[in-house]
């Protein structure tokens, strides 16, 4: 009733949508860096979207299954396989006891999410099973996975799960999934909308123009806390460090040497660098998939236009999720 980690990958940890409502006490938000892929994986295995999935980074983990398990992988385009079959992104599969799943091609993804039907048995803190590495709590013992870890499954099976086990007994996969083309609409572009914030006032117009005119490259210095990007340096008009400032996921801070750092989900709850703006929330799922070497372009947008884009994005998400639900209902009629 578990999965066993055969290879831990570069950085694998359990995440859900993170902790909300405790930032004023210094608790980091955490959660899946690409919450869309996290949710797709959950929906494909008929889980609640709040179930934790395993977030893997760049070099993915490999695992052995110890009993029949419904799985889905989502996040970018990649190739994976077991001894018996190829495993594609955004599709539901049934693994059998003894199956070992490993990745063969991961150049075009930064983060892949693994969901298992019925969910993993994990540690919860403040309403979330996301791993908080600073407090060393939540998820699997509050840490990233290592080789040999054995993670129990909850086997919290609903009628849908039972029906899926039945339907997939022979084929081990569904004849449907989500078309990668439909998702590329969300992930392809390199343009990121940036909304001006209080910190933007600390930059002269010339610096702001530099920031939006050039390209920035994602460096190897990127983790769940933040992402350093390389390009034209941008500096605040003062040399000193400002007073501590409020930050959000997507806030772009600037180091003393002018290197922008984009804050991600495990950011400290207070910022101590100048900040040039904050990336619009509807571009954060895309940001979570930008791997080392990817080019980014920043574009300022006013908050009211960003809100209009957010509505469009939300409508698109709803359509996508309705599509999955429709296919799932058809599957239930088989």
């Amino acid at each position, binding site marked *: 009733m578990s999965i066993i980690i055969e290879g831990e990958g570069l950085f694998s940890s359990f995440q859900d949508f993170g902790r909300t409502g405790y930032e004023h006490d210094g608790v980091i938000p955490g959660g899946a860096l690409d919450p869309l892929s996290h949710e797709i994986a959950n929906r494909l295995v008929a889980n609640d979207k709040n179930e934790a999935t395993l977030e893997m980074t760049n070099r993915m983990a490999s695992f052995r299954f110890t009993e029949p398990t419904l799985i889905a992988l989502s996040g970018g385009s990649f190739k994976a396989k077991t001894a018996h079959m190829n495993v594609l992104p955004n599709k539901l599969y049934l693994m059998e006891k003894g199956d070992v799943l490993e990745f063969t091609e991961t150049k075009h993804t930064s983060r892949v999410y693994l969901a298992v039907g019925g969910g993993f048995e994990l540690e919860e803190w403040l309403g979330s099973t996301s791993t908080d590495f600073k407090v*060393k709590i939540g998820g699997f013992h509050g840490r990233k996975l290592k080789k040999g870890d054995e993670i129990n499954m909850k086997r919290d099976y609903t009628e849908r799960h039972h029906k899926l086990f039945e339907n997939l007994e022979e084929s081990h996969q569904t004849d449907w999934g989500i078309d990668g083309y439909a998702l590329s609409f969300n992930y392809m572009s390199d343009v990121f909308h940036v909304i001006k914030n209080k910190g933007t006032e600390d930059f002269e117009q010339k610096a702001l123009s530099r920031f939006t005119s050039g390209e920035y490259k994602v460096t190897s210095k990127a983790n769940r806390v933040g992402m350093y990007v390389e390009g034209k340096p941008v500096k605040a008009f003062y040399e000193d460090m400002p007073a*501590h400032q*409020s930050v959000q996921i997507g806030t772009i801070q600037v180091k003393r040497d002018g290197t922008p750092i984009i804050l991600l989900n495990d950011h*400290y709850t207070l910022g101590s660098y100048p900040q040039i703006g904050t990336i619009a929330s509807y571009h954060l799922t895309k940001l979570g998939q930008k791997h080392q070497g990817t080019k980014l372009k920043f574009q300022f947008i006013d908050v009211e236009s960003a*809100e209009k884009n957010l509505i469009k994005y939300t409508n698109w998400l709803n359509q996508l999720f309705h599509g999955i639900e429709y296919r799932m209902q058809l599957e239930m009629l088989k």
Partner: protein
Amino acid sequence: MKIYSQGDQAIVVSIEKEVSKDLTEDLLALKKYLADKNYPFITEIVPTESDMMICYDARDMIKHHHIQSPFLYMKALMQTVQLEIKHEEDTMDPIEIPVVYGGKYGPDLESLLKHYKMNFEKFVKRHTQPNYFVSMMGYTPGFPYLTGMDKHLFVNHTGENKSFIPAGSVIIEGKKTGITTTDTYGDWLVIGYTPVKLFTPEFDDFTKLKLGDNVVFKSVSEKEMDLGGFKPCQS
């Protein structure tokens, strides 16, 4: 008061005053006012020393509350509440934090004393004399940034290297002093250690100190206190 967007799901209310107990109380009153109103779409209220970030679920506001622009709505909302803030009488006794200063408990104190051109006794007197208040909370859960330090102890440098710093380390940063609440790596200047636990994740109320709390330090010797479990700083 100035209002800024912080992305499309948060605003920052900036109260343009010097950091003071009064300002922290303003922010706390504003935070309490908003929390009491229980707006279903407000997800976080995060004060800094002079600002407050209010996060909201913009999608929920648009979809379920028929709000056209969440930003303009929040901005208008903040402009109406500012008049209703009242100061509450400050009657809280300070919370006493016992500290073992220097030695292996405060490995950076020796070099700091040279920097200050001050002896150990004088330093301890200056650090234990003021009434501090928690002007900001962050970095790790329950980590208090304490304002009120004697200006002779202000610094504008950090430690030379990042090193292991155990939970309970009393540190100095700029014009502030603080106490680490988890084991951490950092370049803080560590001056002492307290066995008082400021963060207990198992508790519902997991932070011992709260924003606005008054704090005093008391110097104690190693022998006076159970320091079992102390892990020294390492570089």
